[in-house]
């Protein structure tokens, strides 16, 4: 770090070196600028939204109807749909992802790992729009044939949620495997020495030891599921609706933003401002989740380093 003292001519550091360092520093600072711009723009446009006489903050937070046409701006239906899809996604993604991770790190031979890990990478590299197509053309017809066409609408949150679960599966599996793999081998050996079987070692030693890393993974996956857009835009339907039935169509926060902005919305209209207000909420939720996840995983690194 202190290379200056290593140089015989170190005292007069060359001017262009300083310039280059400054430029590189500014590039790095650009990332702060991006975060600040995101926050600034979302807050500014949301302020315009909430200062509209039709919109009251209390109604926004507690209202059960989102119908901008007649001046109803209650965002609970949108939030409810987002939570429904994310919850279904977590119910599918967390156990499956965790089991795959355990299989990869505790059971699979090197050869099988060599095949499975690239497969997961392929699954993770497929664009989300393809998953959306999958939800629409495979998952929805499947649900409709299993539960009956009368019970399952053509657009529904269950199909979107299940496919988001598949989407986050490879991400959970990869990160969870890293967390499990970071548990020192000594802990496993100690457990075997005490007579623990492999499964007991896994569940009672390895998993608890990697719990912070795993929770960080799950939080990040939840954040990803909440922010997921194209799957819900295609599969969960247009039109906000407050419903607890996952087989009914209901629009999520992200689905609403995409639908409104896709229709050439005019600036300074209430529609234009509303997508930024929803964006702000989305940003706050996901940013908090990401930050918490980061905090937890940095604690976890201190444990074994």
């Amino acid at each position, binding site marked *: 770090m202190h290379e200056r003292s290593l140089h015989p001519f170190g005292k007069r550091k060359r001017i262009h070196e300083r310039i280059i360092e400054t430029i590189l520093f500014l590039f790095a600072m650009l990332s702060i600028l991006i975060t600040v711009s*995101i926050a600034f723009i*979302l807050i500014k446009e949301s302020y315009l939204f909430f200062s509209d006489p039709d919109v009251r903050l209390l109604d926004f937070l507690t209202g059960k109807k989102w119908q901008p046409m007649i001046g109803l701006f209650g965002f609970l239906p949108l939030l409810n749909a987002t939570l429904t899809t994310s919850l279904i996604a977590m119910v599918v993604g967390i156990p499956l992802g965790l089991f795959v991770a355990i299989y990869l790190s505790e059971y699979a031979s090197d050869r099988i790992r060599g095949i499975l890990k690239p497969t997961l990478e392929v699954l993770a590299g497929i664009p989300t729009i393809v998953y959306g*197509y999958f939800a629409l053309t495979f998952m929805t017809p499947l649900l409709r044939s299993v539960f009956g066409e009368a019970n399952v609408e053509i657009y529904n949150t269950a199909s979107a949620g299940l496919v988001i679960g598949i989407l986050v599966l490879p991400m959970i599996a990869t990160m969870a495997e890293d967390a499990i793999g970071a548990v020192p081998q000594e802990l496993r050996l100690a457990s075997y020495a005490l007579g623990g079987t492999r499964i007991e070692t896994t569940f009672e030693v390895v998993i608890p030891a990697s719990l912070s890393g795993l929770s960080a993974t799950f939080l990040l996956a939840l954040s990803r599921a909440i922010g997921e*857009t194209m799957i819900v835009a295609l599969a969960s339907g247009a039109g906000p609706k407050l419903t607890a039935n996952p087989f009914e169509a209901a629009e999520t926060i992200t689905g609403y933003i995409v639908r409104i902005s896709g229709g050439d919305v005019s600036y300074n209209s209430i529609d234009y401002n509303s997508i*930024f207000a929803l964006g702000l909420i989305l*940003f706050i939720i996901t940013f908090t989740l990401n930050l918490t996840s980061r905090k937890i995983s940095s604690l976890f690194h201190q444990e074994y380093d």
Partner: protein
Amino acid sequence: MTDMQTQTLFGTDADINILMNKRKRTGMIWQAVFLFSTTLAIIFLLLLLLSVIDSSFGYVALRNEVEPSSLIEGKALIKEFSRTELESTAMDNLSSGILRRVESEKPIAQRSDHDLVSLLEQYVIKPKVLKTWGLWDSLTNTRAVEEYSRTESDSYLTFKSWINAEFFVADQSADPLHAGIRTAFLGSLWIILITFLFSFPIGVGAAIYLQEYAQDNRLNRILQLNIFNLSAVPSIIYGLLGLAVFVRAMQGFTSGSMFSSLSDATANGRTILSGGLTLGLLVLPIIIINTQEALKAVPASLRMSSYGIGATKWQTIWYQVLPASGERILTGTILALSRALGETAPLVVIGASTFISVDPTGVFSKFTTLPIQIYQWSARPQGAYRNLAGAAIIALLILLIIMNSAAIYTRDRLSKKKRLES
């Protein structure tokens, strides 16, 4: 030790055996569950690919608006028309407006047979899609397909591969039989180019600062944390950022009206430049993180030897560190760009065009991209568009495979070189 039924802390030997068997069984059951989950993940991948392939091929039931036999007596298929018959039918049956446009592009007499056939199909015979089937139905349920074609009067069946040569070169068309992805494909390439030009220099520069210059102080720790956070911000938020900043606030710049001669008045900031910059912001944190990983892999001894022979900090970075990590940086960048290639939501939010048939000509053109095209087609209720979407997904996946192979190729070349060195 005559008494085998020794009382131990855990009960008798028999008890222990039962307990041991139970523990073993639990282990086996769980192992089966783990294996099952893993198999399930692979099955999902296969189903995903199969459902795409399924809709890209299959039978189509068509009905002609004008039967070829009514144009030339006794010929049921346009393929049977002779050259002169083709020319005369084209002259007689194309409406005067279309004929004038066609003639001004290229005179009928100079056009190839194939060209004339597709011209006649498009403007005179006008086959309409009645129903489409996927590959699975086409293979296993042929009877139902034929049944349908019999019940619909004047309909006929053809087996169509939705992904074909015409699909790649045709532009968007309202007619699913003649729609293609050329415009979207070119749009994607333009966008990726802008994304690369913007995010690569800045991303690598920022990574060099963080990895080579930055000291462990509060500011730099915040920078690092911020970059990790940005990489996990939902892509739709970047779309909102791009909409407010590039499309709206910087409209003069991104629409090209600042440089009036190049301006494309209709694009009003919803241009390739805006799209590319938005995706550039999106992949910037990913490129920074990947490049940092690449720089971390360069051994400190290389830097020290460079300093040892009197090189400055920047000389060391430029002549030693960057060449040593170049291929890794490139691999990371290609992977980040392939993420940008598949992004849909931010581009929809900044207002990519839904229907354009003009190829993009520069950074100030309106645009559509492959994923947006897929989105548009999937969202339509008519069956034929679903098939088109499936074919477009195959095209997108092929493009991604090419990019990823390039990344893997560079990575492998790197490890080969390393092996030779050691």
